[in-house]
Every structure is written in C-alpha cells, then in structure tokens.
C-alpha cells in the first residue's frame, strides 16, 4: 500500500464514476450524534381502517382486557406486611394470599409439584412473631399471677376457684384484646408495692 501511495499520489483506488457523484459535489454530512429518537416523517401515515368490523373488534379487545383483570388467572402478589401488625388486618380477609390458588385446575394435566398445599392458619400461629411473643409473655405473667392467686385462695380454703380462675383467665386472654394480667383488681395492691421498694417501678 505504501508503494502505490508514493507512485500515484493523486490516484484513488476507486473511480469516481462508479460512485455516482462528480468532483466537487458536496457529500452528505457525516453523523455526529445518534439519529434522533423521533425522526421527522417525510410522509404522513395512511389513516386507519374504519368500519363496523373494525369497531366491533375494538370493542371486543377492550372488553377482553377489562374482563381478564377479574378472572382468577390475573395474579396479584400478596401485599407484604408493613412495619406493624395493625388491628384492621384481622378484618381484611379479602386480601389475596400467596399460598392459595383461586381456581381449581385439573391436576391430572399438570405436574404435581405445582400443587400448593394450603395450611389452615391456626388462631395464634400465623400472625406476626410480635403477637406470638406478646402472647407468651402474657401467658407467663398470668401463670405467675395465677400462682399467687392460688396461694391466696388456699388461705381462704377455696380450692376450686383457682382452677376456674386460671381457665377463665387463659380463655379470656385469647379472645379479647384486653390483656387480663393488666387488669388489677386491687387484691395485690398493698403486698406487691412493699415487696418491690428497692427496684424502680415503671
């Protein structure tokens, strides 16, 4: 290449005729930037088809789109629980859950591994761990209280009451939001406060 450059300096390797433009013609400018995102159109597009058929298919399309949102095939992820378990969660049963399938396919035509086993949520089991911990703390507290009550009751020689009280307290505990151990019926008022004088009372 270097040799031919020295010999025929003004000769190009291609003839100008083959390219289709003469000397001195201005070439189109080279591109400096990527082509624009919406290049201007030279010709306007042809208008869309119109007619009864077209309108009917348009209506069908929009109807199908709307109705497919209501079918059980439209899967929405269950809303992940936000920071705190709220009281209203107990009453919002309409929320979709991840682990149940809303329609019943024919399992003979599907691989078995796609079958989701639905576990029935136990009363205290499926809730947040916070509630579980609160419950265990409550149980421990009221066990303590029920022991103290037992001693007091024994002094009064009423042995059937403590069992009933214990059972009563435990059952009440799970059904209502009022934690029974917080309810102070005044029996322990004098005794406890004298015992715990050293420690700070919160």
């Amino acid at each position: 290449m270097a040799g031919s450059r020295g010999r025929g300096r003004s000769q190009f390797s291609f003839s100008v005729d083959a390219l289709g433009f003469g000397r001195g013609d201005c070439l189109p400018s080279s591109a400096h930037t990527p082509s624009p995102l919406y290049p201007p159109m030279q010709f306007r597009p042809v208008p869309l088809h119109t007619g009864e058929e077209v309108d009917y298919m348009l209506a069908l399309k929009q109807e199908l789109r709307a109705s497919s949102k209501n079918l059980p095939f439209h899967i929405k992820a269950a809303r992940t629980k936000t920071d705190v378990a709220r009281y209203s969660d107990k009453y919002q049963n309409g929320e979709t859950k991840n682990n149940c399938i809303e329609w019943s396919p024919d399992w003979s035509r599907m691989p078995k591994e796609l079958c989701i086993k639905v576990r029935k949520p136990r009363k205290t089991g499926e809730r947040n761990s916070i509630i579980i911990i609160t419950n265990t703390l409550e149980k421990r507290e009221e066990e303590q209280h029920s022991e103290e009550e037992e001693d007091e009751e024994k002094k009064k020689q009423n042995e059937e009451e403590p069992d009933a009280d214990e059972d009563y307290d435990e059952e009440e505990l799970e059904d209502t939001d009022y934690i029974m151990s917080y309810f102070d019926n005044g029996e322990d008022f004098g005794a406890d406060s004298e015992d715990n004088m050293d420690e700070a009372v919160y």
Partner: protein
Amino acid sequence: MTTQEVRLCGLLLQEHFGNVVEKVGTHLIRSGVLTLRALAHETKLPLDLVKKSLCVLVQHGMCTFGAGRRGPAGPVEYRINCEHVFHMLRYPRYIYTAKSLYGDTGELIVEEILQRGHMTMSSTVKTVADRLTHNMPEGQSMDYSEVVSVFSQLVETHFLQRCPPLASAGSSSSGAVDTPLPVATQPTEPESHPDCYKLPYINLTGQLLQSKHSSHTKKLFSGQPLCGDDDGIYWQVNFQRFHLHFRDQAIISAVSCKLDQSSSEIVRTMLRMSEVTTPAHAAFTQALSANEIFRALLSSYNIARPILDQYLSLLVDDPMEFVGKTGDSGGGMYVVNLHRALANLARATLESVVQERFGSRSARIFRLLLRKRHLEQKQVEDFAMIPAKEAKDMLYKLLSENLVQLQEIPKTPDYAPSRTFYLYTVNQLPTARLLLQHCYKTVGNLIERRLYETKENKRLLEKSQRIEAILASLQATGAEAAQLTEVEEMITVPERQQLESLRHHINKLDSSENQVDETIFLLKSYINSTQASR
C-alpha cells in the same frame, strides 16, 4: 427469541395476567428451559407465586412441561411457547370470525374457551347458556341443546379440538416405554390423537328459565340438570384452523380487489371445496375440475358455464398466479396456489410499506429490484427513469434502512473497488423477517404508549368511574333528574374534554394494534410457508 419478541410477550402477559406472570414468563423465555426451583431462585419471587404463575401459563397452553435433561427421574422442566403468547393479540379476530360464521352462540363459546385456556364441553355449554339467557329479555331462555349443536358444528369444522392427552394421564396398559412425562422437546401434537375431533356423549337436557315475577332474574331448572360425563376431556381452540381461514379470506379479498367480485366468488368456492382435503401446510389445494367447480357454485352467483371458463382462464393468466391449471381432464383441472399467493401478498405488503415510508419513486426502485434481482447503480437509474442524483439518494436511504442489500462481485481476487461490480438487490424473505420484527416493535410501542396514557390520566379515569357508579346506583334507586345532573356536573367541562380525547387516543392505539396484527399474520404465514416447503 429476539429482543422485540421477548418484549412483546412480556407486555401481553402483563396485560392479561398481571405483573407476576409477566416476570415469570419473561424470565423463562430468556432462559429457555428451567426447573421450578431454578425459576424461583432466579426471579427471587416466593415459590408459591411462581407455582401459581406456571399453573396459569400451563392452563392456557403457553407453557409446556416435561421430563428434563436428567430424564424422567429428574425435576420437571418448563418452557414457554412464544407463538401462543402472540396469539393473545389476535383474540378479537378469532372471536369475530366465530361470530360471523356461527352467530352469537359461537362467539361466546370461542370467547369462553379462549379466556379460560381449555374447558370441558359441559362447563362451556353451561356457561354460555347462562350468559345468553342473561342477555335475553325476560321469559326467554337458551336451550342447552342449541348451544350443544353449535359446539358440535365448531368441532366438526375443526375450529375446536381436544387437548392432547399427557402420557402420564394415559392408560397404564400402554406397552410403550414407561415414562411418567413426555419429553420436553417433543410436545404431542393434538392432531396425532385419533379422537381429536370426537365429541363426547354428555347428557344435556334442560334449560334455564327466567322467572317473570322477580325483578332480579331467578333461574329455575326445567328438565334434568346438566351432568357432565366428560370429565377429563378438555377442548381448546384450534388456532391453526383459524389461521387457514384467515389465509383463505386474505386470498379471496386480494382476488376481489385485483379482478372482480365474481372471480373472488369462484376462488371462494374452490377453497371451500378443498377445505377438508387439503393438509395444513400444502403448497396448493387438490386439483378441482371445472365441472366440479360449476356444480359447487351457488346459484345466487348466477355464473353461466362459459363465463366460468373465461373467468378461470383469466385467473390462470393473471400475474399474481393465484390459480393454476394442472391438466385438461374434466374441462380443465385447476388448483389454488397457496404458497405462491402468500408470497405475492407478502410482496405486496413490502412494496406498500416502502411506498408509504419513502414515497412512490423509492417504491418504484424497490419493485424494480424485486423483479430484476440484481442491478447496478447506473441500470437502476435507467430502468426507473429517475435522475441520477435522486436515484442515488433514494438507493442509499433504502440501503441504510436495510431494505436493499449490496452484493459485491469482484473481477480480480483483491476486491479492488474500481474493479468490482456493486449490485443492488432485494431478497424477499430476509426483508419480510426484518419487517416482521419492526411490526413486533411497533405493537410493543403501541401497548407501552397506551399504558403510559392510562397512567397519566389515572386520577381522572378513577373519578369518572366513581361518578358513573354513583349515577348507576342513583338511577337504580330512582332518583330525580336534578340529583342526576348534579352528580354529572361533578365532572367539569375541561375534564370531560380531557376524558374524551383520552378515549379517542386509546381507541386509536387499540385499533392500530389490531391492524398491525393483520400484517404480522400475513408476514408470519409467508415465512412459515417458506419453511414448510424446505
């Protein structure tokens, strides 16, 4: 799978089945074949959601599963059938075709089966009868037997077919190799099953009655209730049959545009006669004699025998080559050239695209190159009768858009530019594929724009929906006109205008999607026909 195809699949899945299925589906398309665990791990979705999504996809026939690479003992592998996802774009056309052929009942049957993937015959009949009864005036009801008869007609003409059985669901008495699942790479063709189009016997007598007295329709059964003896026999829509029908329609309309109505009726008759005898991928129909065609022509067309002969010879001589003559017995044996017709239709589409985008002179150059195959620059200018500068400009523009290719023919082994011929050429098949990808991109853009428009005006749309609901409830409880106007005025006039323009835009975008889908169908049929003939 190209980028555009994957993108379009994702958008279609999202529209119909939600974000979760879209995520699962797109990932599965990109990865090819995956097991359940791998899919859940890679998409980082909870396992239950992935299971539910796969159930939905399998139900609709878009996902196939089978024993994987480790054989029957290993985990099940899943793969997505992209063509099936693209069919979702065409659902309105299928439903409209069923309506035009079999009336409202047929329309509802096809719509139900499309929306649910596959259904048993008894559940389809029941649902469709319910829907029809709902729309009928009080006191009338839809008899199950009518729905059953329309269903049978759909099956007889092959528009509906049975779902292919899985090997595991098959009989245990089969002497074949005991694989629990079919191999993932070879899905069973529905047509390979001998009972593909056999109707099951179901005991269906009865109808729903509407009680005239209550304001809400109460449904009473008369006769025996619906009992399905056909559990396990599922029916799906036979998309291939619908596509053959669309292809026939395209050919007939092309003939009627090019020639005239009578010749299109003749072609329609020929196609109708060869519907059942021609296999799906045949290049041309069975040979029909002119006598047969004459007998089969409906008398309403009022075509005499010599006129028919003239029309047939005209069709044969036409450069579009829709009809060909294969013999002289029986007054002349004629066939419809299906593949050639598709190729010509695709070519017409390409030419039309070039004309609309670049002008009629560029289209002239394009047509010239299609006909003459290879031409030099000088020859192009001469044959197209366009001045050199403009011809060069147009050629280079078409070249930059990849619609025209450059072929180098060297005179010397060192490819020196002064001693090489540069010939311009157009290859129809690669250009058709290119245009098909453009179409996929276009539909993707249309869908995204529609979603964007809806999102921008979400607040306004919700407000209008609420007000409509309020109006409906007020009207149901019988409110005065003053209250109704007061509620209507809650939407201000500029908001109304905005809503109106939004509806107009969305209608336009939807309509465009339907129209682009017609082009997609044509190009895809052409590409498939070339592959089948190889």
